[in-house]
Structure formats: structure tokens, C-alpha cells
């Protein structure tokens, strides 16, 4: 009788274990994909500037000497539009240089037009229709934001739109500690 009763309890127990795993799984961010290029130097690349900017484009050499952020965006990317106001506010503080890679634009005017409309938070912007710069950073999609240290080594990658929380809790502390090194 007891054994029979136990038999009926098994499904519930199995489900409890499953539920615990689900709960732990939920705390993990599915968008946090490990990047193979973390802790490696930025590969050599050189991008021309986007139309209408008088700065030179963007090259791997721009990342040496100073802790900098790199943001990958595109006028076609909806999530980029979401994070854009925050990037603009970041520019206001002017604390960390933010470079941009304008990725896979359908035509050369699309990116500059978009920046004209939404505002331009970037120190330097490279035009990257053929994913040359994106490959150097191991970009999987847009938007993505990278932290590069003084020696030009990629230290962190954030997938998806930037937010004040991510900035305050993860990226800014990292930037400060990299500066201190």
C-alpha cells in the first residue's frame, strides 16, 4: 500500500525538480552569449567615416591609449532606437569616449540620416556595410556594446539595448577599474 502511494508521488517530485531548474534558468539571461573574442586584442581593421562627418572613420588603432566603448548600430535596427536616448545622455556626461560602427546600412545615406534625426552620440563612427569591423569584434547582432581597455583588448560585450541599469551596475564600474589598471 505504501509502495503504491509512493508511486503516485513520483510525478510530483519530478516536477518539483524541474520547476527548480526552470526557476534557476529564468535568472539567466538568454541573450548573454559568451563571446570568443573577450580578452583578445581588437583585430586590425579600418573603416571609412560615414557620410557628412569630418572625423576620420574608425580603426583598430583608435582603441589604444584610452578605455573606450564601442557601440554597433544600424538605422534598420529597432532595438538601437530604444537604447539611443540613453547613449545621447551618456554623451552629455562626456566621461567615456563612445565609438560607433554603423553596420550593414542598405545605402550610404541611411546611417547619417538616422543620426541626424535621432542625434549623434559618437566620438568616431565607421561605416561598415561589409561587416569588416563587426567581424573584428565578433558581433552577433545589433545593438551590441563593447568595452575596450587601454591596450586595445576587448574586455566586455553587452548584447541588446544599453540601459541605465546595465551602465550603472556593470559597465561603468568596469570602465573605472580598467582605467585604474
Amino acid at each position, binding site marked *: *500500500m505504501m509502495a*503504491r*502511494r509512493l508511486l*503516485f*508521488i513520483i*510525478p*510530483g517530485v519530478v*516536477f*518539483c525538480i*524541474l*520547476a527548480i*531548474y*526552470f*526557476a*534557476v*534558468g*529564468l535568472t*539567466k*539571461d*538568454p*541573450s548573454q*552569449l*559568451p563571446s570568443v573574442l573577450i580578452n583578445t586584442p581588437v583585430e586590425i581593421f579600418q573603416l571609412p567615416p560615414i557620410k557628412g562627418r569630418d572625423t576620420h572613420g574608425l580603426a583598430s588603432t583608435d582603441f589604444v591609449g584610452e578605455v573606450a566603448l564601442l557601440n554597433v548600430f544600424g538605422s*534598420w535596427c*529597432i532595438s538601437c532606437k530604444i537604447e539611443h536616448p540613453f547613449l545621447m545622455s551618456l554623451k552629455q556626461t562626456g566621461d567615456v569616449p563612445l565609438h560607433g560602427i554603423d553596420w550593414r546600412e*542598405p545605402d550610404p545615406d541611411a546611417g547619417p540620416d538616422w543620426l541626424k534625426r535621432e542625434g549623434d552620440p559618437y566620438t568616431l563612427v565607421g561605416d561598415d556595410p561589409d561587416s569588416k569591423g563587426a567581424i573584428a569584434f565578433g558581433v552577433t547582432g545589433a545593438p551590441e556594446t563593447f568595452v575596450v581597455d587601454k591596450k586595445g583588448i576587448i574586455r566586455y560585450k553587452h548584447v541588446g539595448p544599453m540601459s541605465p541599469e546595465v551602465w550603472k551596475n556593470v559597465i561603468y564600474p568596469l570602465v573605472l577599474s580598467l582605467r585604474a589598471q
Partner: protein
Amino acid sequence: MITEIGHFALILAMFVACAQAVLPMAGAARNNVAWMDFARPAAVIQFVLVSFSFGVLMYGFIVSDFSLAVVFQNSHTDKPLIYKISGTWGNHEGSMLLWVVILSIFGCAVALFGSNLPPALRARVLAVQSFIAVGFYLFLLLTSNPFARLVPPPVNGQGLNPLLQDFGLAIHPPMLYLGYVGFSMAFSFAIAALIEGRVDAAWGRWVRPWTLAAWGFLTGGITLGSWWAYYELGWGGWWFWDPVENASFMPWLAGTALLHSAIMVEKRDTMKGWTVFLAIVTFSLSLLGTFLVRSGVLTSVHAFATDPARGVFILILLIIVIGGSFALFAWRGPTIRNTGVFQPISREGGLLLNNVVLTTATAAVLLGTLYPLFLDAVNGSKVSVGAPFFEAVFIPIIIPMIVAMAIGPLLGWKRADIQVAMKRLRLAFVLAGLVAVATWSIMTDGPFMGVLGLALATWVGMGALVELAERIRLFRDPVAASLSRLIRTPRSSWGMTLGHLGLAVAIAGMTGAGSWKVESIQTMSPGETVKVGGYEYTFTGAQEGQGPNYSFTRATFEVTRNGEPVITMHPENRRYPVRSMPTTEAAIHSLFLGDLYAVVGDADGSDGSYVTRLYWNPLVAWMWIGAIIMVAGAGISLTDRRFRVGVPQRRKAFATTTAAET
């Protein structure tokens, strides 16, 4: 304004559902007829309210009301009307709303056509059904409101994912949901039975048609999804063991087991606790299937929406529904007593084997699907479990069932003689052997699985036909007598014959497509010829053009076989500017022995050459035909008069016919 009324109707439906979940349940416990009867009008009102709400959302899509956030995110004025309509459920919020609409349809059906159910059982079933609905209403209203507004409204929408602008996929989610939600009926019956503490033959008979309908829809839904993947993704593949596909496959496996074990409850009064368990498991897997995609617990190429806040809600809902029902099962389950006894070699034994295999297979698929999640939870490593695992595990598990599938229906209830059954199957055995030898000699370099697969398909298919021949005593009685038996064969038996036959045809298709596929990827310049699977494809060039809301590259292939023209094929490569996302429109020409399949990719240089992919996909059409036969079997079985007439009132009369047919 109309939008707010739709929103309000949804809120109102939730309150009706709350009352419907509580009052009839209490009424059934206290034997209060008025309270119990409240369930019927409540179910109808819920249906009216939630359908109205869904209609309002659909109207928003049709008139492109971009002040609605879902319409803005998923629609566009340039989109053809049919895809505006299908956009209603082509997104998270709308698909959840569709889910509750279907749930309310089933509830309404029980309220309207369930007059032959005992009032207390009907009240409890509707209460449980409504309890599930409350969970979904809350989920919709709190985390996924389809009526959320945007201020100020944007000028145009962001379009539907172009991959999803497809007729097959437009009707795929509703079919799938009809299956998922249909299993909620079996679940509600199981919970009601646990509360009542009574599972009997009549209960089995009530549960079966619902399960059968759900199973038929799910089979259709899965097939549509697979068909879509086959022609739209342009890889020539039809099943990828992707988490989302597995999510629909698991309830199908468990539902198939449930379908068979419910027969034993109905006819032999045995396996009752197990059947209740399967009913809970099947619906739990349906819930998991609905949510796995949505919660961000698992990522996949299919996932359209991932949002942790929803994830938490979903988890709580799953714990209450699944955890609660398993707790109830642990508490009340042991009181269920089986009276039917049987020997291992018997019809029951065959059905038991079917159940053991199917549940093991379900568990294997579940393990493979959730394993990445486990590993991530344990040590944070990201892995993906792919097709090799599933093929290596699933196929060996399922083979014993396929072998037994031909034998089981020929065994008698309680105790049977396997030698008699095997003797009847001699013809099937010989034919399966012949097919194996023939396959092996034609496809000398093919895999062993191909030979085995076709032999098994023959075995199962012939087994189903032998069973039919035995049933009508073909060649033993005069032809006229056999013919009249054929006509009088109950439709539920036809259901089984077609179900098994359909699976046999589908197995042949899966085997062919899996074993002897020929693939060729190359750059072709105009005038070039490539030979694939015995057919010569001559590329005569490609043109660029404009469709209604996309631009396209259209290639032309002249296909010949030994110089004889077969067909001209026009694969396309479409680009949707709204989402700057390309889709491939493969050109497919189905033949008896296989599909010609051509895909055109990007231009290579400027001399008019293109990257092309050409496939020979053997026997693929058999899969779809097999699935159609299976669904037809379910449909025919559902029209069986035993399911329609007042079961409890006429139990006696039917006891005799049941005995006669088995």
C-alpha cells in the same frame, strides 16, 4: 474606442471565469444544482466576451490601427490583407489571446453539447477549464496586454517578419493551439475525476473524443509547421529537433499514448490511474510547449518574444497548474482501483507496450530539450543538443513500438495467442522482407536505417491492412459477406486502420528523406547544367523584379531526365525592405518517388552567375500524405456514433455492440 471595449470585454471575461472556476466546483461538492448549472451560461458568456475581444484586435490589424502597440510592431500598411489578419496571432500577445479564445470554444462546446454528462462531472470539468482560463487572462492582462496603446501613434508599422508572411504558417499556430488547448479537456476531465474519486468506463468514453480531436489538430499543426520549414527555410530539411518543434512533439507523443490508454479504461476498466496521469502529463507538456517559446527559458530560432517578467509569471502558472494537479494526483490517485486483469500477451499488453515506449520517448525528448537549461543552471555553460542526440536516442526507443504496432491490433483482449497473430501477419512479414531486399539492392551505398525504415513502414502498413482483412473475414467468407462487414465496420475502427496506415506512409517518407537525400551547392552561370539525383538542372538565368511589398530575384531552371524535359522551375529569393530581411522561396516539384527542390541564393559577381542549391528529397510527399491520412483517421473516428449518442443513458445497449466488435 472599440479597442477599449475589447480590452474591457477581456477583463470582464476574466471575472466571469473566476466565478465559473469557483461556484460550480463548490456546487458540485455541496450538491447544489443551481450553482453547478451556473457553469453552462458562464462558459457561453466567456466565449462571447473573449471572441469579441479577439475580433476587436483583429479589426485593429485589418484597419492598421498603429496606436495599438502589437499592430505597430507586427503589421504594416503594405502587407496583404490575409497576412494582416494572420498577424493577429503571429505575435506573442495575439497568440495568447487566441489561446484563450480556443479554450473558451472548448468550454462552450462542453456546455452546449455535454448534456449527456452527469451534472456534477460537467460542473467540475467546466470549473477546472475555467481555472486554467483565469491563469491565462491574468497572464494576458498583467504581462502581455494586446490592447496596450502607443502615444503618439506612429505613421506606419514595423511589418511582420517576412519569414512568417506565408499561408502555411498563417494557419499553423491556430491548428497547433487547437491541439494544445484540446488536451486541456482531457486534463479537466482527469482533475474532475480525481476530485470525484471516480474513473470508470464512461469517463474513458467521454475523454476519448476530446483527446482524439486534440490529437488530430496537433498532428495537422505539427505537419503544417514541418511543411513550412521544408519549403520556406530553403534548407530542404523538414524537422530540426529545434526546442520549439520538440515542444509541440512532446504533447503529441504523450497524447498518442493517452489516446491508446483511454481505450483500455473504456473497454477493460484498467490502467485508470495511468490514464489520468497521462492526461495531466499531456496537457502539462502542452502548457510547456506554449510557454517554452515565450518565456526566454529556452532560446531558439523560432523565439519571437523573450521577456523575463513574463517568464516568472509563466513559471508560477506552471507550478500552480502542473504542481497542483500532481499533488492532487498523489493524494487522490491511490484510491483509483482497476478491475480488469490481463496477461502480458494480449491487446492490453500491446497497448501497454505502446504506452511505455511513447512515454520513454517523450521523456527522452524532454531531457534533450531541457538539458541545455540544466547545464546552464548547474555551471553556466551554454550547449545545444542537436539532431544527432535525438536521432541516436529516439529512433531505437521507438522501433519496438513500430514492430509491435502491426501485432497488437490482432491480439484479443485479456489473453491472446501470439502465434495465431503472427501467422496472420505472414504476408506482411514477407512483403517487408522483400521491400528490405529490394531497397538494399537498389540503394547499395545507402544507410542501413533506410532499409530498416522502409521494411518497418511496409510491416506496419500491411499490418493495418491485414487487421482490416481479418475484421471483415476477407477470402474466408464470401466476398459479399466481407463487403457488408466492411460497410458495417465501426468508424472508430476505421480511425485505427487509417491512423496506423498513415503512420506507415509517413515513416516511409521520413526514411526516404532522411536516408537518400542528395544535395548540391554551387555557383552556376547561365547555360550551366548540374546533375542531382538523376535529374539535370540547366540554369538559364535570373531576373530581378518587384513584388507587392518586396523585391526579388527569380531564377529559371530547365529540368530534364535523360534529356527528356520534366519541368521548368522558378525559385525566388525575396527581400523585404521593411525588415531588410531576405527569404527564400524554394521551387519544389513533387514526384511519386521524391521532390525536386531548387533554391537560388545571391548573385556571384556581375556576369549573371548565382549561388544555387539543388536537392533531391526522396519520398518527402509521403510524409505529408501520411499525416493527412492520420488526421482523416481521427476525423472519421470522431464521427463514430458511440461518441455522439447519450452515452450514460444507453450504456447497456452499447455493452453488447462493444463486445461484438472486439
